[in-house]
């Protein structure tokens, strides 16, 4: 008997043997880990035989996890969390050759809800197909189909080609591009040619399994614990989106996250010139207003969302390109401000090409920024880069780098592994400006201004540097909870008072959840991830931020002179561990903390 609101099963596909099963999920695990990121991490923990598994080996599991809100028209709750063992991260002092952290990456769209409609709480893929395949799912009819003819196809073209092949527009899908096929570690998984599970190398793991795509549709719905209570909450939350904070709704519709390109720059919190600066003088050229005027034609929403933060249009100018989504704050900063690129059409071209390859734009933008700085400092020259004059603001050069990285040509074969690896190769103190944590590159929020928040946020993130992690324990617990429910961060402000996540979860399951209960679930999920990482050999030494932030002062803008106080950071980190109930020397969660969070099963296995 499954918990109400769930099917109690995950579709379990082994691509090596071709076996297709359903994995029964213990009721206890659903109650403890909820879904999405949390339940995905628990299943990953169970699937892996122990630490040190090569993330690109058939043994690694790749999980596509909706949450209990998925498929219900609860506004802005369409996220799908992809969970796997990361091909991106490594410890400062590796305990295992392939020791790496958990990876979870979250995408909007329609894919997760459709997994629920097909009658599953998730999809788990292990093994490796002998040739390229895609998985086609209609309810309990599951087929592994030859995808040889699609191998090498870019995501934009494939998005249409897959629908042509299926002959039915009602399938939802996600897929990889050439970057993942080439086993570029920073490859992403996309859906609708734009929405990406971008971070943490999930696409690379998918590529390593020879899995081009999953296409799914279904006719089912779970049974809820308290159906009428759910209907009542649904009508209230819909009303809330119509009546409360309508400026907020309009704000998202106007510019999505691109709205903050200009404000973040003004506030000194933007990644500019490989994080050397927090403010970009030309940010207006690529901000939301410029895009509204010159590029965007339409706003798009994910499943049952009123915010419509995705923008599409046509960019014209130095380049002409179809825009599926861009820029938003991350892509606009990482391929714009961080590279000192203010040519709007050029920026759109970079975003579109990166999406077409299916690569994490945060990591690739960060990596190109690192190389630009090394080039400026004379550590590398154009010959080393394969005749690319990699100067700041050079769109053509950045574009060539994207091609090289995604095809793993020349320098691209090194650069595709990210800045930690590049710095090890180059030496000469380049590690000082290699902006990563645990091997995973930082995102578009710069650290020195509000450093208490951002340094903890990046240093303690369980997938390596992550801007969505939260800069304190309660923010982190909330984020882990949201990612497990499948709720969208951007809409969280509307879920207050009666229409809280806890009340929705209570109506769905028929079990009573308080705000404290769901917060504890968030803490439990976060701590399970931590135990996963600890088991893989990650300790306090790995919870740090790049040296640049302790040494570099901003020279420009309202926050000129901003720098991170190293001593304050380490004090904050110690206090953070204390608050979490983790050992302040090793960072391992203490046994009483684990028992208290109902994670005793992790004790004997670490």
């Amino acid at each position, binding site marked *: 008997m499954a918990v109400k609101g769930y099917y109690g099963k995950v579709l379990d596909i082994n691509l090596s043997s071709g076996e297709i099963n359903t994995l029964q999920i213990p009721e206890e695990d659903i109650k403890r880990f909820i879904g999405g990121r949390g339940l995905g991490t628990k299943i990953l923990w169970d699937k892996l035989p122990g630490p040190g598994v090569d993330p690109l080996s058939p043994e690694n599991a790749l999980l596509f996890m909706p949450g209990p809100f998925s*498929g*219900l*028209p609860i*506004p802005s709750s369409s996220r799908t969390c992809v969970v796997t063992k990361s091909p991106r991260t490594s410890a400062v002092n590796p305990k295992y050759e392939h020791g790496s952290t958990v990876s979870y990456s979250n995408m909007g769209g*329609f894919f997760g809800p459709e997994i629920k*409609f097909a009658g599953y709480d998730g999809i788990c893929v292990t093994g490796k197909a002998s040739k390229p395949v895609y998985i086609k799912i209609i309810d309990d009819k599951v087929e592994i189909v030859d995808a040889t003819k699609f191998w090498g196809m870019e995501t*934009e073209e494939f*998005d*249409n080609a897959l629908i042509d092949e299926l002959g039915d*527009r*009602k399938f939802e899908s996600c897929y990889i591009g050439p970057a993942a096929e080439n086993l570029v570690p920073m490859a992403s998984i996309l859906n*609708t*040619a734009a929405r990406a599970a971008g971070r943490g190398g999930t696409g690379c793991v998918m590529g390593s399994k020879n899995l081009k795509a999953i296409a799914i*549709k*279904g*006719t*089912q*719905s*779970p049974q*809820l614990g308290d*159906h*009428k209570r759910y*209907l009542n909450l649904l009508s209230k939350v*819909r009303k809330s*989106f*119509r009546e409360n904070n309508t400026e907020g709704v309009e704000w998202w519709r106007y510019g999505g996250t691109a709205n903050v390109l200009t404000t973040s720059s003004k506030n000194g919190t933007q990644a500019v010139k490989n994080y050397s600066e927090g403010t970009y003088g030309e940010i207006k050229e690529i901000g939301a207003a410029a895009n509204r005027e010159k590029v965007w*034609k*339409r*706003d*798009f*929403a*994910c*499943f*049952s*969302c*009123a915010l*419509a933060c995705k923008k*599409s*249009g*046509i960019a014209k100018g130095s380049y002409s390109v*179809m825009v*599926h989504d861009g820029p938003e704050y991350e892509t606009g900063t990482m391929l714009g401000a961080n590279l000192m690129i203010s040519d709007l059409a050029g920026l759109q071209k970079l975003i579109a090409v990166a999406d077409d390859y299916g690569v994490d734009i945060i990591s690739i933008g960060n990596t190109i920024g690192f190389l630009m700085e090394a080039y400026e400092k004379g550590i590398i020259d154009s010959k080393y880069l394969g005749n690319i004059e990699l100067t700041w603001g050079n769109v053509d050069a950045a574009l060539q780098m994207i091609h090289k990285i995604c095809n793993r040509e020349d320098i691209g074969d090194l650069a595709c592994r990210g800045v930690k690896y590049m710095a090890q190769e180059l030496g000469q103190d380049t590690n000082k400006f290699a902006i990563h944590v645990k091997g995973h590159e930082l995102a578009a929020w710069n650290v020195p201004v509000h450093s208490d928040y951002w340094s903890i946020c990046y240093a303690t993130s369980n997938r390596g540097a992550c801007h969505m992690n939260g800069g304190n324990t309660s923010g982190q617990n909330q984020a882990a909870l949201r990612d497990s429910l499948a709720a969208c961060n951007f809409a969280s402000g509307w879920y207050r008072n009666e229409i809280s996540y806890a009340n929705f979860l209570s109506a769905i399951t028929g079990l009573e959840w308080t705000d404290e209960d769901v917060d504890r679930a968030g803490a439990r999920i976060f701590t399970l991830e931590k135990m996963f990482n600890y088991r893989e050999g990650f300790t306090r030494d790995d919870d740090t931020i790049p040296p640049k932030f302790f040494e570099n002062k901003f020279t420009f803008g309202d926050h000129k002179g901003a720098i991170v106080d190293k001593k304050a950071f380490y004090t904050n980190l110690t206090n953070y561990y204390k608050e979490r109930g983790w050992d302040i020397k090793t960072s391992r969660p203490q046994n009483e903390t684990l028992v208290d969070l109902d994670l005793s099963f992790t004790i004997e296995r670490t």
Partner: protein
Amino acid sequence: MRNSKKYSRRHFLQDMAFGGGGLILLGTFGFRIIQDKENRIIKAISVDFSKCAGCRTCETACSAYNNPIEINGERVNSLGNPHYSNIKVYHFNPDVDVPVTCALCEDPPCINACPIAPDLITGRKAIYRDENMTIKNDTERCIGCTQCAQACENLRGGVIHPNPETHKPERMCTLCDGNPQCVENCPFGALSYIEMPANRSYENLAPERIAQQLIEQLYNIKV
């Protein structure tokens, strides 16, 4: 009820204005409201394609209302799996979204195609226009020949889906007892329940053709 209004000349001009008037495929200046054979005015669901963001809330609202479940003898909305919805939002790349639902056509090809002889008293074939203007199917008389679905597919929006087992037509708009739930719940105000102008044939087209027009207008791309 929101978005519910009479279709006026002003609305018509607004429609003309969007995209330089290209949305009105058969548009001529001046219009006539569609009516049934007895000259009763037909109100139906109209889509403002410039507002739809493709969120598919309409699908879930339609499905939840039209496929109710029973709890302690009370009929309440189901969870609304979009598979069972009468309105469908089709996504296209380049990005446009096209909601399609039964247009309650003035000259319904589905009824014309139905081979069942009209009832001597009511004049109805198996598939017929009901008092409330919706298209309904009499499952007792219907033989599941799927002619109606094919006619709709070939000549209009392709909204009729034969039941996979009985082959009898489904997914015609019910207007939700006078308060269409798709209109009521659309977060973007893209749907309205209005009197339909006869020349506004956009509503009756297949989604692929509508998408083609929208893509050309929005992005200036031929597909």
